[in-house]
């Protein structure tokens, strides 16, 4: 199965020049937020909770949701194009396993290349996979937000609490605002 698996890296990058990020808005109020969830348990509730917090506390106008069907593969190009047209910024996650963390970083880098600021969420256990994908995509040092591992077993309140803790860093990544350091 693994030999036949689609290579989500798209092959080695020709150059490693560091992250190339899209221009950031100064603020999020009035903006449309894309939520790109993978199939892992609690990924959608986590992103929904962040979306609700962004609307309540930062005045975002709307969300556009999409749910990937593959843990391993990057977002399909057509879906990426549609979200890039409809959304001002995107949230991607939750990387709660090795392959989905790597795919989430690949997606984040792809949205940045399409001119859309992205914030990826991975659990701390999978930094090795996420960082490797960033290197392979020619974006070593790509910054993402981490939350404690695991996310899948959390109940609704636990998911909301994690979303609450991640919010400041996510806002910082999506805007020109400095990213605060928060306890997890």
């Amino acid at each position, binding site marked *: 199965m693994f030999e036949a*698996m689609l290579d989500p890296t798209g092959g080695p990058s020709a150059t490693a020049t560091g992250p190339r990020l899209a221009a950031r808005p100064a603020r999020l109020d009035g903006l449309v937020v894309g939520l790109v969830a993978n199939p892992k348990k609690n990924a959608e509730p986590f992103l929904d909770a962040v979306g609700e917090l962004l609307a309540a506390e930062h005045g975002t106008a709307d969300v556009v949701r999409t749910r990937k069907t593959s843990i391993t593969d990057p977002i399909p190009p057509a879906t990426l194009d549609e979200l890039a047209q409809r959304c001002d910024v995107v949230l991607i996650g939750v990387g709660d396993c090795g*392959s989905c963390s*790597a795919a989430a970083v690949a997606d984040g880098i792809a949205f940045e290349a399409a001119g859309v600021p992205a914030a990826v969420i991975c659990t701390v256990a*999978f930094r090795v996979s996420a960082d490797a*994908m960033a290197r392979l995509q020619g974006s070593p040092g790509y910054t993402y937000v981490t939350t404690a591992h695991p996310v899948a077993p959390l109940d609704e309140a636990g998911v909301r609490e994690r979303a609450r803790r991640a919010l400041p860093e996510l806002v910082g990544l999506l805007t020109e605002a400095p990213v605060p350091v928060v306890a997890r």
Partner: protein
Amino acid sequence: MSIDENALSGLRSTLEADDYRMAVTETGDNVEVTITAGPAACEDCLVPKPIMRNILHAALGVPEDSIVLVYPADAS
């Protein structure tokens, strides 16, 4: 071969979070890395081989084409 034990330890921890284990064996000019799955392992959660080779290249200090990588599905 100059093994970065910290990097290798980090990789082991990452694998264990998905209930995988890793064995590293030197075989002449090559390094054989065998990944085995525990009972709670999610088949799709293991990173594809190109990513694993990139990680191992950095951790083991050997060229990627010197790494013989064996995944659980390869053994069946």
